[in-house]
């Protein structure tokens, strides 16, 4: 019964063999449960749809090649700009590592393996290598897609663009994951992570301003653009970037033993729930669990405190009385609104004012990404419409959090002396203001990047209708009943996909029509206005559907 811990160094081999045996046994169990015909069918569907998507992307890229001015810009600052992207990915990785990421273990592994006298580094290495491999593979796929974009619009051989795109994609993914492994295994302090992230991003930003390549991140950018520079540049800088990434991966893998068990246990519990939520396409649960995994919790102290409502005797903002004295009833008395509408408005702002800094930055960055993507669409890279729509939809998911909270507590909603549908529709007012702000950020980003006046006008026209559409579609998504179509999964996919499709059409339609109008000498703003009327009508219809759907689900009816 009494444990002998005197010779555990010698017992390591035996324990690790047990670990290997267990994993192979579990693989056998898993393989025995797999329906190979079903798996083959899924692979077949994947190949068919993947090939179709690739063909569609290739076809959609029959756009104009970049002009000489843009090419000169890419020559001067392209590597540093891509380096900035890499630096942001590495900073995100460091942040994830500071919160116990990126590895997600099973709860029994934490309890039985990591508490056993087994070298934790050895026990976790297989999982970490698998994560690196998967991330690298995804990076290769995205890099290949980017390579297809590049060789259709830039000079250089297609094979070189594809190869460099794949290498760059893999390097970005591996560097982000490796930095997370380093921060997690070596227990970087939160303050140190912020400083390190600022230094890495700052170095890349300095490269961008100085039009040079000195940081490892910029070196990876140079790798991505090597087909452009091949004639007059050596491969030394890109190779140095790859060496740094490899070194980071090795450093991450050798520090795994320091992984915090507390964080691993917390993530294990959340990840199990997250897998179930993904299986049932429960978007609301996915958002909440992802926030918990990233430790993205509301601020204890709001950025600003709202003044308490004073009741019906509140002083008006504006009081216009007739000239013969204040004792007469005023012609106009503008007081802050009271009642349920104001309560909902206040409640929503109280929620926004508790957003953690990372969420504020993310929503702002998504707005900028949407603006830059729309600029690229305007200049000819049509598929980036998807990126703009995706960015706005993700920002809208953050903005509809108050509705999500309302739907999470249906009994509270049912007990309110106001119709549930009305409450949910009222909840769209404050988020619309937030999303209008996101639209403003998109416009500013486009202006900074040199957008023409026509596009700026289009973005301004789009702001409010697009904010309404993206919010109502995001709200529709978070109020989906994940179990409504368990027996008809096709309907479930439709339910999940419809809001996304509406936002893609609502964002892409006006921009593409306005672009066509501009190319044919017509007013792009006029074309956008006509389109936005339709977007506005669709938004109202979705809002009405949203209200009636939530009202129908309320458990207690007055």
């Amino acid at each position, binding site marked *: 019964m*009494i*444990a002998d*811990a005197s010779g555990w160094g010698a017992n390591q081999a*035996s324990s690790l063999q047990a670990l290997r045996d267990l994993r192979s046994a579990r693989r056998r169990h898993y393989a025995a449960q797999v329906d190979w015909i079903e798996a083959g069918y899924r692979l077949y569907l994947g190949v068919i749809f993947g090939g179709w998507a690739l063909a569609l992307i290739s076809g959609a890229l029959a756009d104009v090649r970049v002009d000489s001015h843009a090419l000169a810009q890419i020559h001067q600052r392209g590597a540093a700009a891509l380096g900035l992207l890499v630096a942001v990915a590495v900073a995100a990785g460091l942040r994830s590592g500071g919160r116990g990421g990126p590895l997600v273990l099973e*709860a*029994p592994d934490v309890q039985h393996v990591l508490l056993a*006298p087994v070298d934790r580094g050895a026990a976790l290495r297989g999982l970490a290598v698998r994560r690196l491999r998967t991330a690298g593979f995804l990076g290769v796929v995205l890099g290949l897609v980017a390579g297809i974009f590049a060789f259709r619009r830039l000079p250089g051989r297609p094979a070189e663009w594809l190869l460099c795109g794949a290498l760059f994609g893999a390097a970005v993914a591996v560097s982000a994951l490796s930095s997370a492994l380093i921060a997690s295994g070596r227990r970087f302090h939160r303050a140190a992570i912020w400083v390190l992230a600022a230094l890495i991003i700052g170095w890349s930003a300095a490269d961008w301003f100085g039009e040079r390549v000195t940081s490892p991140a910029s070196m990876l950018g140079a790798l991505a653009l090597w087909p452009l520079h091949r004639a007059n540049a050596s491969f030394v800088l890109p190779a140095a970037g790859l060496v740094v990434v490899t070194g980071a991966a090795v450093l991450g893998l050798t520090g795994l033993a320091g992984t915090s068990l507390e964080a691993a*246990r917390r993530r294990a519990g959340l990840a199990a729930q997250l897998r179930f939520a993904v299986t049932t396409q429960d978007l609301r649960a996915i958002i909440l669990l992802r926030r918990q995994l990233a430790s993205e919790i509301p601020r204890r102290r709001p950025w600003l405190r709202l003044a308490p409502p004073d009741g019906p005797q509140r002083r008006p903002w504006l009081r216009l009385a007739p000239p013969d004295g204040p004792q007469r009833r005023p012609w106009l008395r503008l007081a802050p609104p009271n009642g349920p509408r104001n309560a909902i408005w206040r409640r929503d702002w109280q929620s926004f004012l508790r957003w953690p800094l990372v969420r504020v930055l993310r929503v702002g960055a998504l707005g900028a990404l949407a603006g830059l993507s729309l600029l690229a669409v305007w200049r000819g890279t049509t598929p980036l419409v998807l990126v703009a729509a995706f960015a706005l939809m993700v920002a809208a998911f953050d903005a509809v959090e108050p509705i999500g909270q309302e739907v999470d507590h249906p009994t509270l909603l049912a007990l309110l002396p106001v119709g549930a549908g009305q409450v949910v529709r009222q909840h769209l007012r404050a988020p619309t203001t937030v999303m209008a702000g996101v639209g403003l950020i998109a416009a500013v980003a486009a202006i900074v990047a040199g957008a023409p006046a026509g596009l700026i006008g289009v973005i301004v026209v789009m702001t409010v209708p697009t904010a309404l559409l993206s919010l109502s579609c995001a709200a529709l998504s978070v109020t989906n009943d994940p179990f409504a179509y368990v027996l008809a999964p096709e309907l479930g996919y439709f339910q999940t996909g419809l809001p996304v499709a509406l936002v893609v059409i609502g964002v892409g339609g006006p921009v593409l029509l306005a672009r066509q109008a501009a190319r044919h000498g017509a007013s792009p703003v006029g074309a956008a206005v006509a389109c936005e009327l339709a977007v506005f009508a669709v938004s109202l219809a979705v809002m009405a559907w949203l209200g009636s759907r939530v009202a129908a689900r309320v458990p207690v009816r007055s």
Partner: protein
Amino acid sequence: MTATDRGGADLPALAADGLRREYDDLLALAPLDLEVGPGELVALVGSNGAGKTTLLTLAAGLVEPSHGTIRICGALAGSLEARARTSYIPDTPVFYQDLSLNEHLEYIARLHVAEDWRDRAPDLLEPLGLQQWGDKLPDQFSRGMRQKASIALGFIRPFSLLLADEPFDGLDPPSRTVLVEMLQAATADGAAVIVSTHRTEVADFSSRCLALHDGQLVYDGPPDRSIIAGHLPPQDDGLLAADVPESG
């Protein structure tokens, strides 16, 4: 089942020195100095949120102290040597979904290089009433059976310190008796045992009682219910007064 090497036996099984744990601004465990010797059976009592689980997870190495140290037989909690000596039975049983109970026993025993697990497994499962369930997956188990299986996993491997978090929860009376016998056998064998509980019978058979309230150690002494009650705040009066009927 016999001791093979008492290396470190002259050291306390558990020694906490200025041990403190905070969760942000919440104090979960106030600075604590504590020693538990080999062969001691310690009942750890306290109301919900008193800090019992925090103390046990700190000793198991699952949670790290904010300040101070905790050592198991001289080794820092969480170190390889400490893990070899500490068995932890969590309050919520944790199982792989795709391994049967026997496969769990084999795996955990082999991780701890317990070569005699094949002989010992039936001796563990039979008194707990699990002998027919060895080849079943944990998903098929009831709440009580999961708890018993978790106890079996805690005992299949050698240990110098057993940490059991609410191990009596969900057990039927015969199983509770069996568990008491197992805990007593472990202490007789020289291991130290710390059991967190709300149940009176643990205080009756333990050799020492620790009472926590709001993260503070408010009592450390013999398991006399009347004395312990005097050290607990009024709201904890019922803690050791009567046995709680088993619901499950």
